């Protein structure tokens, strides 16, 4: 008898299953964030079908980054622009989904976040910080994919979603959101909480954030 006959196919598969199942894997992310990302994808598909795609591509190609709030017949509670979508959730949070393809319009994003009760300083080509910043970032912002302690580079074409809870914002704090555009077409978003009345802005992308927050790099497909 061949020695390999000792293990049946099922035994081998069970052993493989045990080994693969021993690997730790991430628990499921917030389903609301997944659904928000799916909704944004569906809207983009509808726009393409309705012929607005040509405009989208032209805008992306020339990096004009227009903020076309509400142009596409948004449902109440949802703001859609070429570069981002903000949707309100039943629990009072808002989900921000950022497209990797279009230059983010900082002024439009700041204004639209405020409509959801989220005080924010959104800057393009600079990032504002105030030392370590107020505590409580993780209670205010849930990012998917989670950026971790270091710069998180997303696969090309992948969106990032930020679920923001304005009710958890510490008094006197604002969300600082800095966007940097690189010649490669990549965009880097740096974000953290800052003290509303005491912060400084720098025009170089921070290599590391002084306090809790995150850095995400979007790559066009």
């Amino acid at each position, binding site marked *: 008898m061949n020695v390999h006959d*000792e*293990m049946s*196919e099922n035994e081998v598969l069970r052993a*493989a299953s045990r080994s*693969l199942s021993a690997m*730790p894997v991430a628990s*499921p992310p917030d389903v609301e964030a997944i659904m928000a990302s799916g909704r944004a994808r569906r809207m983009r598909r509808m726009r393409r079908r309705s012929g607005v795609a040509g405009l989208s591509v032209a805008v992306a190609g020339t990096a004009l980054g227009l903020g076309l709030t509400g142009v596409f017949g948004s449902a109440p509670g949802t703001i859609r622009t070429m570069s981002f979508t903000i949707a309100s959730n039943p629990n009072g949070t808002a989900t921000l989904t950022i497209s990797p393809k279009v230059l983010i319009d900082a002024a439009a994003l700041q204004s639209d976040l405020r409509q959801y009760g989220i005080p924010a300083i959104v800057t393009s080509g600079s990032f504002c910080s105030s030392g370590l910043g107020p505590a409580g970032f993780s209670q205010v912002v849930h990012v998917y*994919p989670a950026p971790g302690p270091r710069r998180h580079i997303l696969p*090309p074409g992948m*969106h990032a979603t930020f679920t923001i809870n304005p009710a958890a914002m510490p008094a006197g704090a604002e969300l600082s959101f800095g966007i940097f555009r690189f010649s490669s077409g990549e965009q880097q978003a740096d974000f953290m909480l800052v003290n509303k009345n005491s912060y400084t802005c720098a025009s170089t992308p921070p290599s590391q954030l002084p306090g809790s927050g995150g850095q995400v790099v979007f790559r066009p497909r």
Partner: protein
Amino acid sequence: MSSQQTEFAAFFQASWEPCLRTVVAVVGSAQLAEDQVAEAFARAWASWPKVGRHPAPRAWVVRTALNAGASWWRQRRRELPLADHDLTAPSGLDDGLDARLLTAIWRLPRRQREVIALRIFLDLDNATIARQLGIEAGTVRMHLSRGVTALRHELTPAKNMEAGNERPR
């Protein structure tokens, strides 16, 4: 929540782990797999009227995740220090056999890994795996057989050693 949202949320909660484990088994990177599976679930929700009626929706998610990752891998291949057949198991596993077997799994050709992972975690039969991968059922059988044979080579010395240890003195 609408009934569709409730249905999708239940599907997502029940299917996240098996889908993620399937993709991890194929791509070998938990972080990359997590990104790809999340993207696939977002696409599933974007097309939920269709995906919700799919005969094997978890397989749809896995296939979409793997397809989404294919172009990413192609673009990054030049930057990777290791080819995918050089992937090794993460350290920290308690059982030495696990680490060795995981390494053996990731040294299999990709198609064999896909077939084995779909069988193990999604419990799909050969015909369904064949439909998902766009290949013949006989080809699935061949990949499964070759993959199992390769893993058996890895497992058998350990099994023989265990049998030897258990032999009465």
